[in-house]
């Protein structure tokens, strides 16, 4: 369990190091996934490249002309408290505030959550429901990819050798929109989701009809998924319990959960339909209340 720790000064240096050291090297940001994996023998890097201090990744939360850009090193704690996320984008602080405990949220990065690509990652569904785009920096320059395409499976992403995830971007929501994030686990903190659900709902001006919905579900498939059938079905339906229940059922049909020590597949299925319906109902109430 020994490795060399590198502390490059710039992104370019970090990427150069990673290119030189190859697969024996891993980046480390907050270390809250990587260190656990090293301790449990699931990761055995010979080189660890610390990127937690790189200014290019640290820019945190920036409001841009067409939405928001969050540096890959953005800490959950900063998202929880950010004033721009307390209204339509409420799902962000809701998802951030249920990651681990306060100590974890003070150090863990959202970039690490994405690259670690756990099926149960909490922040991934929240970003999926916002159609987030990723900015990725490599030796050859910067590229963008949608989060939806980027995560491939448990621990697998489209990150190429040496690349660093630099930032996450998403567009503002249309008028009459709201979001919500819900998570269930065995306890109320320090918990890996048994199911988590993120939803974004847009209603018409009357607030009676669904125009669009984006629903992301975590922990019930090899990777978090967008509940496409539920989303499609909702468009044009009245914003009521029956529609939301239907969306919950459709979202659950898409789930492919496993049974493990945390919960049975059956219970997870059940929770998907409950939480999706609830998240949509919460969105509706939030739009009405806004």
């Amino acid at each position: 369990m020994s490795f060399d720790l590198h502390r490059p000064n710039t992104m370019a240096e970090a990427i150069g190091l990673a290119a030189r050291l190859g697969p024996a090297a891993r980046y480390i940001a907050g270390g809250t996934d990587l260190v656990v994996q090293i301790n449990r023998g699931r990761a055995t890097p010979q080189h660890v490249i610390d990127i937690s201090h790189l200014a290019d990744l640290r820019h945190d939360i920036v409001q841009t002309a067409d939405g928001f850009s969050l540096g890959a090193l953005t800490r959950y704690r900063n998202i929880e408290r950010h004033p721009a996320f307390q209204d339509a984008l409420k799902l962000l602080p809701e998802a951030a505030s249920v990651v681990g405990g306060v100590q974890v949220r003070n150090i863990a990065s959202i970039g690490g959550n994405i690259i670690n690509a756990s099926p149960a990652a909490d922040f991934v569904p929240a970003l999926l429901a916002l159609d987030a785009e990723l900015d990725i920096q490599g030796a050859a320059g910067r590229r963008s990819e949608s989060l939806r395409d980027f995560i491939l499976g448990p621990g697998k992403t489209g990150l190429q050798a040496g690349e660093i995830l630099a930032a996450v971007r998403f567009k503002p929501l249309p008028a009459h929109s709201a979001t919500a994030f819900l998570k269930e686990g065995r306890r109320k903190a320090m918990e890996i989701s048994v199911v988590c659900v993120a939803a974004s709902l847009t209603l018409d001006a009357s607030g009676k009809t669904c125009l669009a919905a984006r629903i992301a579900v975590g922990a019930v498939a090899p990777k978090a998924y967008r509940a496409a059938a539920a989303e499609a079905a909702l468009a044009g339906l009245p914003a009521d319990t029956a529609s939301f229940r239907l969306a919950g059922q459709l979202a659950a049909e898409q789930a492919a959960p496993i049974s493990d020590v945390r919960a049975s597949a059956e219970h997870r299925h059940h929770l998907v339909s409950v939480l999706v319906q609830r998240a949509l109902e919460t969105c509706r109430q939030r739009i009405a209340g806004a």
Partner: protein
Amino acid sequence: MNAEAFRATGRVAGKRLPRMDGIGKVIGKHVYAADFTLPGMLYGRVLRSNKPHARIVKIDTSRAKAMPGVRTVITAADIPAVRYGQAVRDAPVFALDRVLFYGHAIAAVAATTLEIAEQALAAIDVELEDLPAVYDPEEALTNAILVHPDWQDFKVLPILVRDGNMTARTRMITGDADAAFANAYRVYEHRFKTALQHPGYTEPRASVADWDANGNVTVWTNTQLPFDTQTTLSEILDLPVSRVRVIVPGIGGGFGGKLRIGVEHYAALLARNTARPVRVLSTSEEELIAATPRQSAVVHLKTAVDRDGKLLGRQGRIIVDCGAFAGSGPAMASVSLQVLAGPYRNGTLALEGIAVYTNKVPAGSFRAPAGPMANFAVESQMDIIAEDLGIDPLELRLRNIVHEGDKGPSGEELKSVSVEECLRKAAAAIGWHDRKPAPGRGKGIACSWWMTTGGSSGVYVKIDPDGTATLVSGAVEIGTAALTGASQVLAEALSLDLDDIKVAGVDTQTSPYDYGAQGSRTAFSVGNACLAAAADLRQQLFELAAKQWNITTDGMELRDKQVIAGNKTIAIAELARLSRLSGGGLIAHGTANSPGPAFDPGRVENHMLPAWNTPSFHAQAADLSVDSETGAVSINRYVVAQDVGFAINPTYIEGQIEGGVSQGIGQALSEEIVYQNGRVMNANLTDYKMPTAMDVPEIECILVQSASAAGPFGAKGVGEPPCIHPPAALANAIAAATGARMHSLPMTAEKIVKELRSARE
């Protein structure tokens, strides 16, 4: 002068004074066993079985031994085949011809670094051949697979009745239960199950051992029972006890999980082989597969009542799953029967406790061992009966509880009985009149009783020439502040302030004997020994003063740190100085022992703890909400009314209550060591779920003070009881909130959803 002559003035004893070890612990200065190192120390690790039951075909350590940095590798072949244990001597240091559970120790390694030690474990070649195994305790009673085919060869306490996998059977019988059941208005019969629960101490088990030039071994370890550990080590190492020295630096929690030998023997054996100090520190995985969790249990309980809900009799059987070695299982099969009887007038009793072997982790005594399992059954069933008879659950309890002077289940006389006061106070505080305040919200209550464990305590108390005192006790401070409590008793008796007392660390070579930090007894028993020492010292001080003044000791008083006779005064400090000139200084040896009460031997069979010392009574009430769709439980309020006899330091008693209830909430809702085909599925702290601060509400404590005759200033044991009731109190509240009656622990959201669904169908 005797100890009873002291009365609490409220000056020190009874006050909320800050604990003596608090600052050191808060700023990180306190040395725990896991912090302790010695120069040249090697790192020891234990190889553990990855199969639940298998024949050992081969162990080849040659590759591991040849690795650079590896100093020794030992297996069962290298040491005498000693079996140790409490009631049953069935546990060897390493697996002999077979591994008996997933996690069973096979070999140990010492190396210059932890990494090398770990690599060496991987280099030990072990060939195991699977054997059929038995995991279910009920099946184990009838199964042909014997965990110990050689069970008849074990040395055991003569009181035990054993047969194959059954390693103890005990009974409590009062009156003619069959007749009572035959004439009952109604009979209720239920089955309850509880799970394995890790004690959850923050510091893993840690030991450093070192041998001196004369062949004596010293072990620095975080044991709750240094003298028991010393004895067990002397057996394993085949040395007289005097050559084994156990020193306890500091303990990061024990809760019963550090009572018996844990890693001390590995450290001592590895150190002997290498002539170097060796440290062995358990990993989280080892803690969850091979420490001593709370036994799981299956309880069948049958209760007969009359039309008014008056209890006519209880019949039942509790099966305590010991795992691969008996450990405290036989004692728990015994103690659980008192808890099943409960603080009730049962009419008749026919209870049976059984301890059984399975191919799982050897379990043990975790805080109020056997308490929560039996209480979950009896107090859940009380609510089921109340519901069925249409009687309020509180009222049903009040109609049946014991009162002052009643007989306990072994025929012992019950004194200072306060269960009614506890029930009424807890109910009033939780707002019992409004038991189902909203859909999905409900309140539950549970009561119980518990012993203050006996056993003897010795202390030395030494008074220095500055007038301060040092308390030397063989009892360790496991984090409860019990020794702050004992010191408050001592300070009170000597007319000193708490700041005037220092507590010496435990070292079996120099500390007087103590039965140990277990069984809610430390503050109680060490406090009593302190009173005895104080009485002796007071007499010594009076005699010194008498000599100084040339008068008799008649009418002398010890007050405000001085001896007073009429208008003459002399400071304790001055007398301590004088004592040095001629008397070798002021020192006293105080002792305490609490023998159990008289009981009726005709009411118990093969029972290891037939009558409880200084029992305490208590009730707890919960107010919670259940999400009917997700099954999630949120506890809104939690109230504890506990009879503590006399609150030596209310702050730390409340701390004990808060901690105990939190552990009880964990057992009730989330904690469980999960086995599948004999393997532990959640041997890490990601999936072994102790409650967090977000899961535990503020615990509201009501300290009932119904003085005992035996405890210091009337105190009763307080540490264990708080974790007895939460499973039952929460189960009853869940039933009140949803109508769903939970019969097995932990009551996870998933189980609640299932129960609600089957109730609908």
